[in-house]
């Protein structure tokens, strides 16, 4: 069994990798297996966690849960042509809930906290001992302030990017580009270790070529 699982894993791994050369039957087979199995996996998981887990495992008494179930049932009305439009109710509920919830979350965590965190000193009288460290902090703060400010200028929609405003927007986009470069450089490392893991599996676990 163990042996079989190993070979199966290797077969599927190579099937996916073969896509890099071109689309082919081996990849199609791996893809078909993947889609079927994983759809089944998620449905079974959701079924036990979100349905059985909520209604049967001793929590079914909560009346609020049944409102959720009713909304869920309305969703299935789509299958009946005459009353299919009722399925818009749960959709409307979800859209309303998501909008309201995220409006407040984003206001608090994206706007207010970030604005607050940007209130930094850009000059200090404390230069003296440990001058270097302080200078680095002050320069860092200045960069954070200028970058955040001009970055926001870039996102203005209702003003043409011209003159001083346009200049600030251009500085803003420079900062945004540095951010993208940094994120790229930073993510590359972890991406490589994924491939290392897979090659380790093929050459080591499967073929036994690594000592």
């Amino acid at each position: 069994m163990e042996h079989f699982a190993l070979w199966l894993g290797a077969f599927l791994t190579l099937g996916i990798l073969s896509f890099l050369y071109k689309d082919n039957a081996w990849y199609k087979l791996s893809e078909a297996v993947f889609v079927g199995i994983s759809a089944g996996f998620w449905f079974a998981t959701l079924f036990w966690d979100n349905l059985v887990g909520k209604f049967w495992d001793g929590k079914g008494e909560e009346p609020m849960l049944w409102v959720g179930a009713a909304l869920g049932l309305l969703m299935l009305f789509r299958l009946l042509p005459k009353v299919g439009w009722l399925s818009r109710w749960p959709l409307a509920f979800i859209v309303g809930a998501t909008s309201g919830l995220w409006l407040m979350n984003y206001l608090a965590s994206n706007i207010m906290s970030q604005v607050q965190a940007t209130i930094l000193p850009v000059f200090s009288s404390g230069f003296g001992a440990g001058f270097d460290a302080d200078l680095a902090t002050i320069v860092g703060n200045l960069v954070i302030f200028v970058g955040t400010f001009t970055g926001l200028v870039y996102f203005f929609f209702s003003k043409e990017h011209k003159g001083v405003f346009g200049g600030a927007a251009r500085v803003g986009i420079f900062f945004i580009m540095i951010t993208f470069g940094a994120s790229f450089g930073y993510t590359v490392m972890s991406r490589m270790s994924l491939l290392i893991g897979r090659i380790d599996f093929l050459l080591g676990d499967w073929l036994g070529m690594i000592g």
Partner: protein
Amino acid sequence: MRRQIPLLITFVVGTLLIVSVFIPPFGELETTFNIWFDIIAVFAFFLGGGNLLRVHIDKLRKKKRDWPFSIVTIAGFVVMLAAGLFKINNPGDIASAVDAPGSLFSDIFNSVQYPLSATMYSLLAFFVASASYRAFRAKNREATLLLIAAFIILLGRTPFGVLVTSWVPDSTSLLQIPNMAIWIMNAPNLAGQRAIIIGIGLGVISMSLRLILGLERSYLGGEK
């Protein structure tokens, strides 16, 4: 009516959730609504899973291109679903966790889904490489900045980065590439992130208001 009631639902639910932040007794609405969402999502899966089966059975019947692979998809779906729903081979009985070690469900997950998922993920390494060659080009000033930042961060993570600037004295250690990489992460990168994040926050507020007020209503479908 068919559009008015849903619009009303969106408006009431959205407003309620905004207000609940300021009214302590409503504070638990968020949890309740999240639970409802989970429940609706399971019901919706009957539609999604049904659609998946229908598409592939259809392919099979009409012998469309690549139809043999549809057999595999259907078989995989049914087998995994059966293994999960009936808890085949689970140690103990039906009360055990669906993915208990030793169950058919967890065996299939480990020997089939896991390697597939990990390999698909690892394709990223290849695409990072091809994108690096093809797309990261200093076409203009913006692209050049992106490139330089990426390069310094990458360099800071290889032995070369340390080597290249190891002659820089410790008193100006900020000019050593590994430290420069950290500084970029903590200053200009942070600034750009903040501008993007604050912008996103405002974008979300504005879009949410459009949805709650019913200005944006395409998701509700047509009049019929």
